[in-house]
C-alpha cells in the first residue's frame, strides 16, 4: 500500500495542488488560506458548471439515441455549442414574477436551492489531495445541506401564489421527505463499518486490496451492494429525476412548483437539479465505490481525480440511462415504494451490516459462512418485500386492434 502510494505521487497527482500553490505562493501568509479557499471554490464552480453544461447536452444526445434519433446536432459541430445556445436563450428571457407573488421569497427560493446544492460539493474528496473542506462529520454535513432543498421547494411553491404551484410543492415535499429516510438509512452501514463520518476516512477504509487485486470497495460486499442500490434509488427521487420526477412531470403538470418561474430563476432550479444529482453521485462514489481509488492496483499510475471523475460520470450516465428507460410513477406508488420497500430493506440492511461487522475476524470456512449469511440476509428480504410490493399486480395485457 505504501509503495503504491509512493509511486502514485506522480507529478500529475500533485498537479492541481502545485498549480494552486504557484498562484498563491507570493501572497502573504494570512491571505494564502483565503486565496486557497477562493481558488477551490472557483475551481468547483467552473468544473461543475462545465459538467452541468456537458451533462445537459449528453442527456439530450443519449435520450435521442435511445429513441432512435440523433439528438441536437445543429448548433456547432455535433451540436456541441447547444448548451451555450440554451444558456443564452434562458438568460435573455424575461423574468416574470406574478403580481400577487411574495416577491422576496419568490426570489429567495431558487437562490437557496442553488446555494445549498453547491454547498454540498464542499466535503466530497475529489482526489488524493483534493478535498475542499475536511470535516469530522462531513457525511452528516452533506445530507443536512441537502435537507434545505425541501425548504426551497416549499418557498417556491408557496410564494408563487398559484394553487398548482403550491399543490405540486406539497407533492414534492411528500416525495422528498419520504425518500430522505431511505437515503439516510442507506449510508448508515458505511459509517458503521468504517467507523467515521468523515469522507476522507470512509475513502481510506476502502483503500486495501483483497487477494492483491480486488478492491475492498463497499459496493463489493452484500450489505454495500444493497445500500448502494437503495442509495441510488433514493438519490433519483431526491434529485427529482425520472422515474421519480413527479414534482415537475413535464407531460402531466405544467412544471409543478416551477410554474411561475422563468428566465434566470428557472435556470437556477435547473442547475440545482443537476448539481444535486452530481453531488449525490459524488457522494455515492465516495461512500460505496471507493472514492478516488483505482479499480486495480496496476492502474494506480492514473491520477486519483481522473478515477473519481470516471466513476462520477459513469453514475451520471446511469441516471440518464434510467431516465431513458422507465416510465414515471404515480404519487401513491412512489410513497408506497419508499415506505413499504426501501425503508424496511434499509433497516434490514443495518442488521446485515451489524452481522458483517461482528463477524469481522472469521476466517476459513467461517468466512464462507459469513458471506453466505450476509447474502441471504440481503436477498431474502428483497425477494419477500418485492413479492409483497407487487402482489396483486400482474403484467398488464394490451389488446391491439386487429
Amino acid at each position, binding site marked *: 500500500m505504501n509503495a503504491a502510494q509512493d509511486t502514485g505521487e506522480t507529478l500529475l497527482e500533485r498537479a492541481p495542488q502545485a498549480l494552486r500553490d504557484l498562484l498563491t505562493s507570493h501572497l502573504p501568509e494570512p491571505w494564502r488560506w483565503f486565496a486557497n479557499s477562493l481558488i477551490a471554490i472557483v475551481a468547483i464552480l467552473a468544473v461543475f458548471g462545465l459538467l452541468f453544461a456537458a451533462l445537459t447536452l449528453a442527456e439530450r444526445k443519449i435520450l435521442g*439515441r435511445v429513441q*432512435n434519433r*440523433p439528438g441536437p446536432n445543429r448548433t456547432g459541430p455535433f451540436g456541441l455549442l447547444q448548451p451555450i445556445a440554451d444558456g443564452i436563450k434562458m438568460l435573455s428571457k424575461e423574468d416574470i414574477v406574478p403580481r400577487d407573488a411574495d416577491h422576496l421569497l419568490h426570489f429567495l427560493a431558487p437562490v437557496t436551492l442553488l446555494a445549498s446544492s453547491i454547498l454540498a460539493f464542499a466535503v466530497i474528496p475529489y482526489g488524493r489531495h483534493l478535498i475542499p473542506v475536511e470535516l469530522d462529520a462531513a457525511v452528516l454535513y452533506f445530507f443536512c445541506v441537502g435537507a434545505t432543498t425541501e425548504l426551497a421547494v416549499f418557498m417556491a411553491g408557496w410564494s408563487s401564489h398559484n394553487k398548482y404551484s403550491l399543490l405540486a410543492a406539497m407533492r414534492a415535499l411528500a416525495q422528498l421527505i419520504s425518500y430522505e429516510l431511505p437515503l439516510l438509512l442507506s449510508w448508515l452501514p458505511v459509517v458503521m463499518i468504517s467507523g467515521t463520518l468523515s469522507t476522507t476516512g470512509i475513502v481510506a477504509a476502502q483503500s486495501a486490496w483483497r487477494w492483491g487485486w480486488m478492491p475492498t470497495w463497499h459496493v463489493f460486499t452484500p450489505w454495500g451492494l444493497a445500500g448502494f442500490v437503495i442509495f441510488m434509488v433514493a438519490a433519483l427521487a431526491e434529485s427529482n429525476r425520472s422515474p421519480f420526477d413527479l414534482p415537475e412531470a413535464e407531460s402531466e403538470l405544467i412544471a409543478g412548483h416551477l410554474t411561475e418561474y422563468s428566465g434566470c430563476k428557472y435556470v437556477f432550479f435547473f442547475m440545482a437539479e443537476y448539481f444535486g444529482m452530481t453531488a449525490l453521485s459524488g457522494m455515492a462514489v465516495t461512500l460505496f465505490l471507493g472514492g478516488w481509488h483505482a479499480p486495480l492496483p496496476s492502474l494506480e499510475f492514473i491520477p486519483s481525480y481522473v478515477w473519481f471523475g470516471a466513476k462520477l460520470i459513469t453514475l451520471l450516465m446511469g441516471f440518464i440511462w434510467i431516465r*431513458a428507460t422507465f416510465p414515471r410513477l404515480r404519487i401513491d406508488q412512489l410513497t408506497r415504494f419508499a415506505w413499504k420497500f426501501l425503508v424496511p430493506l434499509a433497516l434490514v440492511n443495518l442488521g446485515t451490516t451489524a452481522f458483517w461487522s461482528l463477524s469481522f475476524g472469521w476466517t476459513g470456512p467461517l468466512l464462507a459462512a459469513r458471506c453466505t449469511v450476509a447474502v441471504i440476509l440481503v436477498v431474502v428480504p428483497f425477494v419477500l418485500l418485492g413479492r409483497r410490493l407487487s402482489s396483486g399486480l400482474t403484467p398488464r395485457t394490451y389488446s391491439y386492434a386487429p
Partner: protein
Amino acid sequence: MLGTGLLQGLAVTAKNFAGSFHDPKRLTTVEYPEKKSVIPEAFRNFPFLVSENAEDPMGTLRCVACQICEKECPPQCIYIEKSKDKKPDASGKMQIYPAVFRIDSSVCMNCQICVEVCPFDAIKMDHVYEIATSERFETLLLDRHDLAKPNSYFHQIRPLEAAEVDGRLTAERKAAEEKAKAAALAKAALAAKPAAPAPAAPPKPPEQA
C-alpha cells in the same frame, strides 16, 4: 422477482443506444435539408400539367381546356380560360388549348379529383413538397407556365403509372390512327366508289353511253 422487468427495460434501451451507431434501423431520422427521404411512388402533393416534350411545354400540353377539372375541383382552386384558336395536339389533331390555366396553391387540398376526372391524362399529382413562398398572394397562384412539366418528369417521379398512361395513350393513338386510316380508307373507298367504278366503269358508261 422484482427488478427483472426493470433490467429487461434497461437492456432494450441499451440495445437502442448501441444500435443507433451502426444499425440504420435504429437511427431512422433523415436529416431533412441535407438529405431527403425517398418518396414512395404513390406520394401525391399538388397537381401539374403534363406536356409532351420539354422544349416546347406550352405547345405540347395534353390539356384541351375541357374544364372538367375546374368544375369538379371541390375547393374550386382551378381557373381555366379556353383559347380562341386551335393547335395541333400530340397526335396532330387540332385542339383547343388552355389560354389560362391557374391553380391557387393556397386553396388546393391535394385531393387528386382533378386527376381522376381528366379524360386526357393531362393533369397528374406531383411529388413536390417544398412549396412554401415568402409572399402571400402572387407566388401562390401558379399559372400554366409554372404548372407545365414534361412527360419525362412524370416518368421520373412515377415510372409505373407513366408507363401505363403512355402505353394506353399510344394504344389509343394507334387505334385512333388506325381508325383514322380506316376511316380515311373508307372515306377514300367512299370517295373512290364513285371514282372506283370510274376506272372500272369507263368501259361501262361507254357501254351505257
